[in-house]
């Protein structure tokens, strides 16, 4: 029984990512998409809190949205796994439910 959570807002814009991470269950997956991918970057004011709040979940980031924003792969924080669109579909199909955090 697990949930795939998606977040599409930058953590510098609002609290959506923080709220999402505060409502996950151990073993859930969190996938950052669209402007949400800024939450997967290392070396910024949000990195530590994302890493600590996300310690009990699996963290993913959508590669095409990372590339679109010119974020170098080296700037994606450790602990995040990049997936492509096919991977996104597979995750959605294999979890019990998808919760989109808007």
């Amino acid at each position, binding site marked *: 029984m697990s*949930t795939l959570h998606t977040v599409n807002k930058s953590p510098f814009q609002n609290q959506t990512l923080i709220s999402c991470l505060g409502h996950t269950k151990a073993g859930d997956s969190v996938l950052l998409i669209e402007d949400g991918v800024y939450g997967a970057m290392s070396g910024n004011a949000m990195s530590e809190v994302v890493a600590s709040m996300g310690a009990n979940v699996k963290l993913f980031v959508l590669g095409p949205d990372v590339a679109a924003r010119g974020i170098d792969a080296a700037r994606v924080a450790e602990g995040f796994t990049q997936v492509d669109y096919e991977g996104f579909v597979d995750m959605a199909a294999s979890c019990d439910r998808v919760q989109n955090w808007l």
Partner: protein
Amino acid sequence: MSKVKKFLYVNRKAPYGTIYAQEALEVVLIGAAFDQDVSLAFLDDGVFQLTKGQDTKEAGLKNFSPTFRALGDYEVTKLYVEQESLDERGLTLDDLQDIQYEDEDDDYAEKPSIIVVSRAGMADVMADQDVVLSF
């Protein structure tokens, strides 16, 4: 007859700044026609949707807050409100509308629809659903 599914409508936005809150309520009312097990969740700024005393006359907006009190007639009787979200905003249950439903299994006794839960409790509610729709 297909299996009744558990639907949760998640409300995280304040009522008038964007259309999300009003649209969510519209969807809930439409969805209520399908005889599913419906719950609503209010967290983050979503708790502002339930405050009493909303008066939109001068702002020229439609005050949809009374509609929450009609949800019981559509068998939507579970409104989960997150305690931490209330606390962060300096709100208590007294600041929210008194929303009740008539329990047809208990001689139509009036019972409160609002269920205050902790953040961890809200996570449990979310994890217990078949379908989660966010607004």
